[in-house]
């Protein structure tokens, strides 16, 4: 299955893109996407805190199962205001 990953702030800056598509095995979870993105980051940046959103909703359980066509957002600490 394919999911779209949205990237913001430092992650977008470091990966030089604002989104990407990931091909995942059926049964993949939010944490699998997070792990894939962390692996792409420079080593010094891999432990920075993220929140995840799936289809525009925060997920507290990164074990949430993904479906084909889902949009997963990697959300670094937010800075509105």
């Amino acid at each position, binding site marked *: 299955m394919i999911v779209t990953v*949205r990237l*913001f*702030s*430092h992650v*977008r*800056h*470091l*990966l*030089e*893109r*604002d989104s990407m598509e990931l091909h995942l095995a059926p049964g993949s979870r939010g944490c699998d996407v997070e792990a894939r993105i962390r692996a792409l980051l420079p080593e*010094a*940046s891999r*432990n*920075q*805190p993220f929140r995840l*959103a799936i289809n*525009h*909703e*925060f997920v507290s359980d990164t074990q949430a199962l993904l479906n084909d066509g889902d949009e997963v*957002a990697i*959300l*670094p*600490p*937010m*800075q*509105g*205001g």
Partner: protein
Amino acid sequence: MLHTRITEGPLAAYQSTNESAGDGAELVFFGRVRETERGSRILGLRYEYYPTMAEAELARLARQALEQFAISALRCDHRVGDVPIGDASLQVVIHSKHRAEALQAMAWFVSELKRSVPIWKWAIYPDGRVEPCGPCHGCSSDPEQRDDDEPHPDAHAAIGSP
């Protein structure tokens, strides 16, 4: 009354309408762009946001404030895109019967907005660099604890700006 909006372009300054005779407090907060970021001069900030989710989270927070505090109205306008120094990026207006409720609600709302509405700041420097602001490696993720104006230990190359 509830109003939330994320918009590009300058915010129209709120004009008091004095419509609510039952409210003794009308509290207006502007968040403005400072002239420095991490100790360096900037031209302004570029606000990046996650469309759809940011609007939804802002509206959810406003509804929660109305439920949680004894306030009668909350309106919030948040600007995105490029915001020059001195311009307002955020305008929040709260009405309540007494001042204490409005002050408490304002402090809570602005703190929660910084914590949970998917909006991020990028600094626009005079030399043309545009870099993400705030915490990254090892920095505090708590918006109440971090000092965005403190010189940052980790300078990134200027790539991938929004």
